[in-house]
């Protein structure tokens, strides 16, 4: 079969029902504007209807103008009526095939397939999005693209699917939802909602005093006194954040399943309303990371994230598909990490602490950060005649900083096993990164002026995967070199002082 012979295919005809809805939703602001503008001339409803009709026609046209095909070399997508577009992705560049389905798609048995090349963190990374394939067709397509197998004939496909090819590594257990409130993902939601309500009330000139329930609430708070009111408001906020965080957890991770397929991929499926299936090729895996945000750590929870080339990390980790386990018991996160890298040693290896000098540096830095703030508040208070309690309250940040420094010092640790370089650091988010030694492609040794005085160095292993750089902060000079030598044997040998090798 050659490229020219491959027939162009249409998206699923059921998309004829989805596209118009998508268009109308997307055009909603414009339609609203049309309605408002039209109502000044007395026939807003008519203009609104015309707008909706145009959106529906445009949505319908999308199905008729979109075609795709999968040739032996490329995935091609052709679309547009007036402005014709052809996007093509070479099949040997395909790194990710993500399958998502919103509620409307799910009701109609459809999925959206995004074929990505994993080149960058940008959203428009040259991928091809096939919005609207039948769910059954999509799973075959994913196997074909990722495992580079020729598309099987229909009967072979059913046969292959009959065999149980996957092993389940992890599955969400309902009791893990108790970790939901500690993810704090709800803070953003509460903040956005609060801002929206305040803005709307402001714009509409609503006086909170004129709304019955709010007035009662205000009176109740006023009767509690200042301290009582602060406690009550804080408790209400905490409760709201907890509720929204838990809701977010359930929406995002319900039905979470991590499986390994014999073709060399890990599959992640999750989602309550909108389902997502992402894949990670094992040959692109360079390690795993167990991360424990402070709150989650306080209740014994942790997450597991893949270190793989071409996958998003950080804030985008959940959307970018590198998440291997949502917040769950720490032991579970470690078990999943060990299964994914096929070895327990990186997780159990004892870590070498960084010693008293690194510890002192944590404290110096914490104090250098907050003492000037306290001093500034004190000076400003004196100049501006603030009450003394303002200054007294700012003193709280000193013990907080010291506690943080102590925890940060406790977190520091590193080790080198035959398979991996292990580095742990952080307090607000403690991360234990286990980077496979083959994945390391360079070493950076950073020494600030103060680090040189303390005889410390921050060793960074660079890699093409994940965060691109995994640091071992503030290790003693000689220990850093020992780690370098173990992690990449021979690399630093020609550059060592006082050895014969150095003169070679």
């Amino acid at each position: 079969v050659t490229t020219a012979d491959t027939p162009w295919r249409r998206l699923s005809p059921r998309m004829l029902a989805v596209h118009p809805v998508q268009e109308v939703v997307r055009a909603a602001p414009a339609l609203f504007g049309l309605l408002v503008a039209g109502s000044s001339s007395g026939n807003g409803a008519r203009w609104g209807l015309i707008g909706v009709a145009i959106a529906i026609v445009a949505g319908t046209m999308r199905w008729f103008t979109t075609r795709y095909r999968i040739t032996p070399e490329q995935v091609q997508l052709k679309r547009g009526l007036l402005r014709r577009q052809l996007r093509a992705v070479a099949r040997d560049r395909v790194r990710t095939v993500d399958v998502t389905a919103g509620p409307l798609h799910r009701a109609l048995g459809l999925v959206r397939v995004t074929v990505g090349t994993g080149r960058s963190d940008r959203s428009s990374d040259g991928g091809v999005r096939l919005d609207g394939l039948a769910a059954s067709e999509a799973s075959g397509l994913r196997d074909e693209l990722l495992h580079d197998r020729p598309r099987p004939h229909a009967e072979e496909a059913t046969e292959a699917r009959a065999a149980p090819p996957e092993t389940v590594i992890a599955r969400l257990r309902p009791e893990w939802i108790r970790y939901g409130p500690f993810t704090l993902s709800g803070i953003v939601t509460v903040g956005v909602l609060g801002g929206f309500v305040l803005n709307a009330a402001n714009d509409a000139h609503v006086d909170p005093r004129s709304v019955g329930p709010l007035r009662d609430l205000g009176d109740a708070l006023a009767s509690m006194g200042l301290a009582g009111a602060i406690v009550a408001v804080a408790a209400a906020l905490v409760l709201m954040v907890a509720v929204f965080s838990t809701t977010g957890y359930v929406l995002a991770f319900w039905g979470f399943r991590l499986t390994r397929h014999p073709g060399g991929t890990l599959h992640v499926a999750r989602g309550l309303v909108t389902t997502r299936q992402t894949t990670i090729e094992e040959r692109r895996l360079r390690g795993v990371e167990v991360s424990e945000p402070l709150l989650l750590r306080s209740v014994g929870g942790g997450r597991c994230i893949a270190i793989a080339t071409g996958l998003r990390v950080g804030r985008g980790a959940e959307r970018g598909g590198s998440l291997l386990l949502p917040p769950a018991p720490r032991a579970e996160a470690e078990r999943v990490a060990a299964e994914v890298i096929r070895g327990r040693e990186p997780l159990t290896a004892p870590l070498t602490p960084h010693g008293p000098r690194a510890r002192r540096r944590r404290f110096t830095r914490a104090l250098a950060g907050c003492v000037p703030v306290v001093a500034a508040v004190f000076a400003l208070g004196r100049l501006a005649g603030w009450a003394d309690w303002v200054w007294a309250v700012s003193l709280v940040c000193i013990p907080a900083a010291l506690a943080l420094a102590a925890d940060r010092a406790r977190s520091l640790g590193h080790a080198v096993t035959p398979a991996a370089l292990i580095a742990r650091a952080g307090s607000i988010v403690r991360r234990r990164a286990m980077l496979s030694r083959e994945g390391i492609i360079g070493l950076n040794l950073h020494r600030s002026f103060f680090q040189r005085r303390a005889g410390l160095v921050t060793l960074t292993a660079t890699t093409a995967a994940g965060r691109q750089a995994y640091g071992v902060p503030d290790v003693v000079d000689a220990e850093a070199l020992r780690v370098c030598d173990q992690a990449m044997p021979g690399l630093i040998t020609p550059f060592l002082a006082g050895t014969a090798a150095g003169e070679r």
Partner: protein
Amino acid sequence: VILAPLPTEPPPPDPTAASPPHPAGPPDQGGPPDATPDLELRPPRHRVSPRAIRYWTARAAGGWLLVLTAQVVWLLATPADRRWHVLALAVTVVVAVAHVTVMPRWRYAVHRWEAAPHAVYTQAGWFDQERRIAPISRIQTVDTERGPLEQLFGLSSVTVTTASAAGALEINGLDRAVADRLVDELTAETQAEDAT
């Protein structure tokens, strides 16, 4: 052997010793106990071109000139009570002079590079210093860059990139001919190797 015929210098002294306001570190307080003797990394073998001192001076001076110009304009635009303006100007002049005299020499003492048969090794910075080592087998591209100011001083920057966004090795202030030779040899070494 890579780059054997390049102009070599006597074995370099430790740049940390050469860096002017740098007191010796405190005595070793003992890291983790280890039977093997302590390893010590020597600085890379080659210095950059001495003309780099003038280049860094010119670059820093240019930046400070902009700040000073802005401050003078601010001073002239203020009709009365210029005490603070003059003070700020004086502080800027002192800081600028200190920076322009100290930084380039300190930098020159630190900036070094070396290309061994299997690895590239660089050292850069001044107040904060960084050493970077990358295996030749992991090099993806070798780029040269000559900005207008660098051209004026006959200098080149060489950037050796790896597949990691955090792993680029940059050598600033190389003599142009040396840079070209380095690029040629590294490119020849790294051809047709998969470095991811």
